[in-house]
């Protein structure tokens, strides 16, 4: 399995285990955006710690994924970018603007927790006393 998408509370944790080709990454994008709806996820963490290269198509797809996820009501955090990958991406001018990044899974979860606490909790039913 190249990618695993696990559900943890109202978050989805997608771990990419090995380098994906263009077709696989598009498939992954579709699966994840689909699953955000079915699981009613409010946050998505994409863990790329296993990747030691990231090409421009990959980073653009991640960017699109994050934007699509936001439209489906979930915030995306990309975690685990390796130092060498980060350096290479910056040098090739592939920033991940407008997407939140965090050091690792733990940090990503903490960030989502903080972010979603600030928003009004939509699971509270109105009228319940």
């Amino acid at each position, binding site marked *: 399995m190249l990618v695993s998408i696990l559900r943890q509370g109202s978050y989805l944790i997608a771990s990419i285990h090995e380098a994906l080709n263009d077709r696989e990454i598009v498939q992954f994008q579709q699966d994840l955006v689909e699953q955000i709806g079915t699981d009613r996820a409010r946050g998505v963490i994409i863990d790329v710690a296993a990747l030691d290269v990231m090409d421009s198509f990959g980073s653009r797809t991640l960017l699109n994924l994050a934007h699509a996820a936001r439209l489906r009501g979930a915030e995306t955090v990309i*975690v685990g*970018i390796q*130092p*060498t*990958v*980060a*350096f290479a*991406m*910056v*040098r090739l001018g592939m*920033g*991940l603007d407008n997407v939140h*990044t*965090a*050091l*690792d899974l733990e*940090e*990503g979860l903490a960030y989502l927790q903080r972010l979603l606490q600030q928003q009004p909790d939509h699971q509270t039913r109105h009228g319940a006393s």
Partner: protein
Amino acid sequence: METRTPDEVPVVQEAREEDLELLPELVTHLRDRRTELREQWANRITNAHLLSAMTEEEIFSMATSVYDSYVEVLETGSVEALQAYARDLSERIIPRGVETYEVVGIVLLLRDVLARSLFEKYQKDFELLNRVLDAYEPAANRIANTVAVSFVRERERIIRQQQDAIRELSTPVLQVRERILILPIIGILDEQRANQFTEQLLAGIRSHRAKVVVIDITGVPDVDSEVANHLVQAVDASRLMGASVILTGLSPEIAQTLVTIGVELGKMNTVGDLQGGVEEAERLLGFRVTKTDPADNHLH
């Protein structure tokens, strides 16, 4: 192209075979008059104010060693011993500020002293003097070359060594508080150092699990668009790893230069000085520093 080991100094000028036969005679002459010539040479060095960083005794002992190796080179044609001695000597005198012109100067003085003594000895027979000089000059030039090259190489080696040392020392990654790092940059940030700096920064973020990094550029003398670009890259890469960067220590001059050359540092978080940067970092992470009355401590 002929191959040679990097230590070897190429021979510029070769003596003719028949002239080389005269070298043993020459060597004997120089051996016989060693004390006198050596002293003449040492006097000339002092009069020319060369090697002023060395004492007279040091000059004399150096003169003895060089004189003997000099004659040995003439005798054997092998410069290895002289080369080793020159390297060793250079290592000792370079830290004391001896300059290249001084080293070249003393070797040329020795050549002159010896040449004069040859003139004196063979002045009656001009034909023979010419042949003696034909044998002597290539060897003497080779010796001068060897000593000068050894000195310069030694100097280059020391410079390289120091550059390496500076490179290693240059960017320490310091943790000041949990998840806050300080990286002071001292000196000129060229392409190579900038890359190395970014690598250290990213590795530091990883290993310390840093969330905020304060980069202090007080010690960077000159910031041009290239350096600014390196900094922007470092900041972007840090962000990809989930850490935010605060840039501190931009001097008024640097700030104005950056504005003039139109570098986009707008997305960077900048604070005037290191203290302000650390305070800002603490604020971002929710640390609060409170000052207690020192008198309270004495009550308990």
